[in-house]
């Protein structure tokens, strides 16, 4: 069954690496995902107001289009998109009048009936099973110690969590199945500072420093993540961290799909690590 794929803005620019590697991984594993022919902003940052229905139009429009094309599952790679779409989906399904209003507002779209399931790509991989992933491995990443960083949006709030919010294991299991060695680090579910990076970079640098130091303390060679925003904060902010904390050594940060692509023999980016 083909699954609709929603890339979201950042996947086409700064997080290109996530998309490219993920599509290659999906192809190798035979997961049929296809990009929606026309899509808009996912609607992030998800509005937490009860009375702000206009902010839900963007995600619901995407879901309406997905349903209209005959898909029942929509997958995303970006954690932020996943969270926004999944929360919006639950929000409109909870109260039918919300959906009615939005449907009435989106004149140009077919109505959305709440019948699309939003699944993060990680969930698709989990459903495929570790064995299938292992079978595709050409270069097992043995000895590579990976700190799996989840951030917030894959795990919270609880109603859209893809795994246990306090002790998740979905990324670890995938890393194990490609031969890498996941290292536990308690900061894996701590927030990186998120969108504050746009206006308060120093705060984000301090957050990112704590997270990366914790990964280093626990013996990580690299950090993997699935979120373009976390990735930016943990990776690009390292120069700010070094300015604030001259002793900071740095730690490579990758998307989990990049590491998978490496193990599948598609790319060679981990040289020297």
């Amino acid at each position, binding site marked *: 069954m083909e699954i609709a794929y929603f890339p979201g803005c950042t996947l086409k620019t700064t997080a290109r690496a996530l998309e490219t590697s993920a599509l290659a991984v999906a192809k190798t594993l035979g997961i049929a995902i296809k990009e929606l022919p026309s899509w808009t902003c996912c609607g992030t940052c998800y509005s937490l107001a009860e009375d702000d229905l206009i902010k839900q139009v963007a995600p619901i429009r995407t879901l309406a289009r997905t349903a209209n094309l005959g898909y029942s599952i929509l997958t995303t790679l970006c954690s932020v998109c996943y969270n926004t779409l999944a929360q919006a989906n639950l929000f409109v399904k909870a109260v039918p009048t919300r959906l009615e209003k939005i449907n009435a507002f989106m004149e140009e779209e077919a109505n959305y009936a709440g019948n699309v399931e939003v699944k993060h790509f990680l969930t698709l991989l989990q459903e495929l099973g570790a064995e299938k992933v292992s079978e595709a491995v050409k270069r097992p990443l043995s000895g590579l110690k990976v700190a799996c960083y989840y951030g917030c949006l894959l795990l919270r709030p*609880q109603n859209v969590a893809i795994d246990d919010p306090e002790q998740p294991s979905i990324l670890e299991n995938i890393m194990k199945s490609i031969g890498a060695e996941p290292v536990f680090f308690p900061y894996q579910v701590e927030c990186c500072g998120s969108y504050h990076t*746009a206006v308060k970079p120093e705060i984000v640098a301090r957050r990112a420093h704590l997270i990366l130091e914790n990964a280093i303390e626990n013996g990580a060679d690299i950090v993997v993540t699935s979120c373009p925003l976390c990735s930016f904060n943990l990776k690009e902010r390292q120069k700010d961290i070094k300015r604030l904390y001259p002793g900071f050594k740095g730690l490579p940060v990758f998307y989990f799909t990049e590491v998978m692509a490496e193990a599948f023999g598609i790319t060679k980016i981990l040289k020297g690590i």
Partner: protein
Amino acid sequence: MRLVLKRQDDLLKKVEEISGENVFACYQCGKCSAGCPMSTEMDLLPNQVIRLLQLGANEQLLDCRTIWLCASCFTCTARCPKGVSLTRLMEGVRLVLLRTTKEDQVSPKEMEKEFLPQVALISALRKFTT
């Protein structure tokens, strides 16, 4: 410091309406503050934000930095023993301010300094502007 208590629940009611949360369900255990990743940067602890809402200390509340530092990471919500979503309450307070003062907290100009991922720009604009 002395707060003169009188019924002043307009803000409280508005925030509850926007967030859909019951402020008085909070029994002030402080678990939200204990785990908040931004608490080190805040002037009021997250539990104090709820406390000021309960007390109707609107001036003190609307002046604080805390609500603008909340990153909507949902850590407090995930761990709240009473199932109160402080994350939503924070949004409620922010929205009351944004809607009434019409004062944006950030400007796109500020954010031009470096090449940021769109998701950061859009999120920040959506959270901090009217």
